[in-house]
């Protein structure tokens, strides 16, 4: 059990979003796509060299830029 960012999550593992470390703009954007505290999130894959992180939330797959992903904190 521990709190890590999306980027540190292992591929294929599941976690629950605990917080989003960013301003209103970032939170609103993530929220509109269904990423918000309390939601279950599965990391599908990362990419080479700090490329985007691909996650699954509910039935949707989403690609998130690396920087943005470091601000999404997950409890695994």
């Amino acid at each position, binding site marked *: 059990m521990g709190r890590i960012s999306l980027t540190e999550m292992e591929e294929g593992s599941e976690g629950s979003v605990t917080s989003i470390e960013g301003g209103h703009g970032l939170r609103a954007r993530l929220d509109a796509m269904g990423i918000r505290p309390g939601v279950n999130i599965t990391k599908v894959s990362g990419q080479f060299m700090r*490329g985007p992180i*691909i996650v699954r939330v*509910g039935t949707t797959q989403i*690609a998130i830029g690396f920087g943005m992903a470091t601000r999404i904190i997950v409890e695994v």
Partner: protein
Amino acid sequence: MVKKILLMGNPNVGKSVIFSRLTGVKVIAANYPGTTVEFCRGCIGSGASKVDVIDAPGTYSLEPTSPAEKVAVALLERAIEEKDTIIVNIIDATNLERNLNLTLQLLKKDVPVVVALNLWDEAKHIGISIDAEALQSILGIPVVSTVAITGEGIKELVTHLANAKTGEYHYVDEERWHEIGRIVDKVQVIKHKHHTIGERLGDLTIHPWTGIPIAVASLFLLFFVIRFIGEGLITYITDPFFDSLWAPVMMRISVLLGADSLLHKIIIGQLIDGSIDFGESFGILTTGLYVPFGAVLPYILAFYFVLSVLEDSGYLPRLAILLDNALHAIGLHGMAIVPMFLACGCNVPGVMATRILETKRERFIAATLMSISIPCVAQTAMIFGLLGKYGARGLLPVFVTLFVVWLITGNLLRLLVRGESPEIFTEIPAYRLPHFPTLMKKLWMRIYSFLREAVPFVLLGVLIVNLLYALGAINAAGRAIGPLTTWLFGLPFEAVGALLMGFLRKDLAVGMLAPLDLTMKQLIIASVVLTMSFPCIATFMVLLRELGITGMIKAGAIMLCAALLVGGTLNLIL
């Protein structure tokens, strides 16, 4: 009094297909978020009961993050103000929860709403069932299930428009997601299915170790398929048609007109060794018809067929993710490959599609880059025709140069253009087998727009070229600018006409090089300079609209400098 119907929903839920079904107006639909970037109007009914229907870009929420989303939200605001509009909120039934987020926001607005649960077939297919009636009674507005691509449920949707109601579903904003969760629990049942083989394969295309080799292989494959279809059509259909059927007719007309008349010059052009050469004669009915129909159309068909398959399969967003890092090098993010791909067909939709990028900086970089270094398929087809006989030795230098220019210019723009470039943040749609009839409709639409918008320009261009030659204007221009192009690019005076004609149609401009007996090196340089120098008039107009005057002037200056520099360099090193 209802006068308008506005289609709203998340991106990629089938709004444009439903719009086409309702109005008969054909618009492009594709399996990635952000296909529609500008609203489009049509109508249903007739006489007094006639109503406008508007297809809007998709948006995830009522707080827009890109210009395309702004368009959608602005349309909604107008609709609320004018009180004459029904909103048809289209929902992706395979993503009910996320889609209801927008629905609940719409229900807070003072505007009547009807919900269409689209992609019903896909939902069933993956084991999701939704009780539409229960949803209807919870939300208090009509809910209709639809399958846009087959037309299922569209009639019911139209009948239910009369029952559209302003939402009476009350909730506290902070509780929206809880509210949605409660609704979803009540109306949706997901039969848990194991990962299908398709999904497993799908995952392979997104993991870097497997995805990158697959991407490289598929891009090569696509290129060869395009080349194969294009050349096949030319060799077996258009060339035989022009050579054995059209040429004799033209020879008759040539005899009738008499080889020295001005009319002959305009209609048939020059006879080459006593016969017609569709590449070089340069009359309206010879080269004027051969360029668009004989040389370009086969490639338009080939390219748009492949592009449409690519678009509808859902592969583009995956490619965007794999290439994201590469695009960071030029100040963009992965989704910028969508406008870049479209630009390979025609720069006009390419520039339009830059609206899916969030900031002004990205849009300037993307639009400038594509107009500098991405030739449209019409021009590419002509370059293939001209340099194809030298094989890779003739073709590679052109396209490798353009690619290098794309990279270097992009890098410079990233360093020089101020502003922000946000990171990629996009939904990855499910893979779907392209629906063949829908694909063919789209292909036909694109061919039709080429026939309607490009062919007249080519014919007009040939006419203008012939008149200017007859008036001596092109030779005068050649004498004036010629010394510069000869010194800098090693091109003869006669090539100046072609360079200038590039402003009208680039395919025709490349065609004008054919009669000049240029060497391979000269053809390479001319092709590169023509691509880079200045956009054709159609592209110029959208650039002007999308970038504004100052943006256009900046972009134009960059293009001109880059063209001079690269053309000159090629002349030195080749």
